[in-house]
């Protein structure tokens, strides 16, 4: 389950819905990771672009990996502007077993950061500034370049 929202996520509502959706599925562990916009470097907030076709195939591949371990994942992310102290990202794993859940949420969130086709911008002085210095090149980047 991957859902995109315009603007900030309604975190408590999402966490409640996901918990209730799986309340009879016999999972022993539910671990959501909630990402919230921090006040730093004088920003007013963040803004996100998402390329949905590749995000969906990336997510689908992770859902298959989860299934192999008897687990499932659910994810929500914001499009557009998200202001200070609002949340833009929730990733959750449900698993029968604790160890699987703890390892899976870590691997999933790290690969999300490295691979999910989402671009982040700082909102500052009414400008939208690409956060290149905090961004990660997708594996395989640079093949079109002169050094590629």
């Amino acid at each position: 389950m991957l859902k995109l929202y315009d603007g900030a996520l309604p975190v408590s509502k999402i966490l409640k819905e996901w918990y209730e959706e799986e309340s009879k599925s016999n999972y022993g562990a539910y671990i959501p990771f909630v990402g919230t916009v921090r006040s730093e470097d004088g920003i007013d907030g963040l803004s996100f672009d998402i390329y949905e076709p590749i995000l969906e195939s990336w997510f689908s591949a992770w859902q298959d990996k989860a299934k192999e371990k008897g687990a499932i994942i659910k994810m929500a992310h914001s499009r557009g502007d998200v202001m200070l102290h609002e949340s833009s990202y929730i990733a959750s794993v449900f698993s029968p077993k604790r160890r699987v859940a703890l390892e899976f949420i870590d691997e999933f969130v790290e690969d999300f950061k490295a691979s999910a086709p989402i671009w982040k911008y700082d909102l500052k002085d009414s400008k939208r500034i690409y956060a290149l210095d905090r961004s990660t090149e997708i594996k395989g980047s640079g093949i079109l370049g002169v050094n590629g």
Partner: protein
Amino acid sequence: MVRVEFLGPIQKAPLELEITNLNQLATILQDDKDMLEWLENSAVAVNDTIVNSLDIEIKDGDKVSLLPPVCGG
């Protein structure tokens, strides 16, 4: 025709090109000075699948996308 799209922060309009492989695309894009940095740090997808090599044939109707460095969350 092959459609080439520039995603996220790359401020460039899509191109429609007569190309049959990614080497041709590299040559064309390297002529655009504004693109040189993006070419170094962007990944390439053909029909929404990331590719790791230029040795890939492209056919009429394909879509090529450039994905600059990402930062979700």
